[in-house]
């Protein structure tokens, strides 16, 4: 018996472990969700997750809205890469409606989606850095995420919750300024990414903190429904862009980076490699876009007046455009009955949309397959037996977005 033994009141049972509430508003959780940790010293015995703090009933709301009004809801799922969600939703609608998309629009979409992927991975990786104590990388790359946001701004006018594109294409063509900004980004960004890697990849402290931290085997990861970089870090080369290509991804030449141990370091490496691959894809897409000449180079939407919201200047000057505008805005367009599942490779995994239509004007049922909702349930298993500080790194390295998890 030690001399410093605390005297407990008579009749109380001595608890050997500590209960710690991590969250819902804790600076280390990067979002509103709670972990009730049972700690033995600094080791985690069990972790119980509570989520749903920012549940906004998107699926219910979507049952009462015409298709084009659901796009802003998808923004608010994974708000770090909102354009991917928007595009995924448009592609789902187009699949249901049977709209054929011109090649140029496909390539423009690919550019936007890959930019979003870079922005998302950049945040995630630099936040892992912050949680290991390296703040510099985070502040440094934020300026370059800004370049991506400026490109979004040039294309659609907004930055974070983008509502980019329309069913059938884009709201307007990419301006020359947008292409200039893209070129600027492609010119400057590789240097920065290289420097970012120099800061972290062989950094002794970073390696010591992340190697072997929060690992998961390929088998468990698959069973838990992991997708995206987290699954690839465990060594499974599953990528929706390759397995079920959408938006002409089959025409692009890129590699799927895979890890082996599925720990935080592997996840970091996979994300970094994916950014390089995304850059490759953007360059190829840009080259393909520039090959279009004459009239073809002006195409930015499919010719489907019944679903594609017409340009505002046409609404004011052309009767037909006015009629379609009215019908679409008032939600008077019936959609074909059917059920469709479409998934895209979101920045943190397979983002799926399951849309059932009964032939009405709003979806009968819409379900979002949110990747981080599916894989966050593995957190308890991953963090069991880990140190508290490692659990924090695991949390940020899984790339959890509360908005997406709670839908």
């Amino acid at each position, binding site marked *: 018996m030690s001399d410093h033994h605390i005297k407990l009141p008579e009749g109380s049972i001595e608890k050997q472990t500590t209960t710690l509430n991590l969250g819902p508003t804790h600076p280390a959780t990067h979002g509103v969700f709670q972990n009730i940790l049972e700690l033995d010293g600094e080791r985690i015995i069990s972790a119980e997750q509570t989520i*749903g703090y920012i549940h906004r*009933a998107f699926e219910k709301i979507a049952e009462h809205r015409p298709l084009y009004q659901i796009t802003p809801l998808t923004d608010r799922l994974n708000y770090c890469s909102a354009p991917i969600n928007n595009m995924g939703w448009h592609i789902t609608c187009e699949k249901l409606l049977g709209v054929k998309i011109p090649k140029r629009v496909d390539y423009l979409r690919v550019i936007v989606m890959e930019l979003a992927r870079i922005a998302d991975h950049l945040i995630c990786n630099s936040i892992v850095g912050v949680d290991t104590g390296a703040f510099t990388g985070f502040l440094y790359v934020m300026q370059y995420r800004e370049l991506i946001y400026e490109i979004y701004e040039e294309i659609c006018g907004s930055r974070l919750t983008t509502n980019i594109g329309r069913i059938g294409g884009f709201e307007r063509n990419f301006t020359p300024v947008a292409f200039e900004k893209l070129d600027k980004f492609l010119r400057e960004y590789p240097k920065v990414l290289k420097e970012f890697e120099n800061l972290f990849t062989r950094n002794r402290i970073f390696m010591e903190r992340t190697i072997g931290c929060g690992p998961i085997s390929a088998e468990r990861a698959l069973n838990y429904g992991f997708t995206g970089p987290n699954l690839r870090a465990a060594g499974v080369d599953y990528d929706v862009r390759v397995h*079920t290509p959408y938006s002409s991804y089959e025409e692009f030449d890129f590699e799927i980076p895979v890890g082996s141990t599925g720990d935080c370091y592997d996840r970091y490496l996979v994300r970094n490699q994916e950014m390089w691959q995304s850059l490759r894809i953007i360059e190829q897409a840009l080259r393909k876009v520039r090959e279009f000449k004459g009239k073809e180079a002006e195409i930015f939407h499919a010719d489907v007046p019944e679903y594609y919201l017409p340009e505002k200047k046409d609404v004011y000057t052309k009767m037909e455009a006015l009629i379609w505008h009215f019908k679409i805005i008032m939600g008077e367009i019936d959609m074909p009955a059917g059920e469709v599942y479409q998934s895209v490779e979101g920045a943190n995994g397979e983002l799926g949309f399951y849309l059932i239509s009964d032939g009405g004007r709003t979806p009968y*049922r819409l379900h979002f397959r949110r990747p981080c909702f599916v894989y966050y349930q593995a957190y308890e298993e991953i963090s069991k037996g880990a140190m508290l500080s490692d659990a924090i790194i695991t949390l940020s390295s899984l790339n959890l977005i509360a908005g997406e998890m709670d839908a």
Partner: protein
Amino acid sequence: MALTNDTIKQRLTEKFGEQVQQFQEPYGMLTFEAPKELNLKVLQFLFDEDDLAFRFMTDLQAVHYPDNKGRELAVVYHLHSLTANVRIRFKVFTDIQTPDVFSATALFSAANWMERETYDFYGINFIGHPNLKRILNVDEMDYFPMRKEYPLEEQTRVDKDDEMFGR
């Protein structure tokens, strides 16, 4: 040999006969349904067979059809065979009075939260689930909000007194 929808259909009919039915292919994805008592057997069969190997649960959710008397609720499984790269959709229907469906958590760890979410919104009682409680909504909630009888709040209502947002 590539795994086609016809092969899957054939294998299922061989194993389960008439009980697996309603084969359709909306937008190319094989869709079928089975009695709810058989859901685990079908999932296990699809999981175990080496040529099928549907070992990845992509998604699980429910749908409410109030007019479908006796089979109001549908539980929909989306499965993916990663080796053959084929997706299928599998449905079981249950009536709303006794919405009991066997839980797939023993087969897919991923089903744990997905079933909790489905329970939360539709009230499907997953038998054998280790921790079936609400996940996104508050625990005190006593109804299942995604069922069709609950409308969205009317936007123009005036009876609600909300200090914070001034309605």
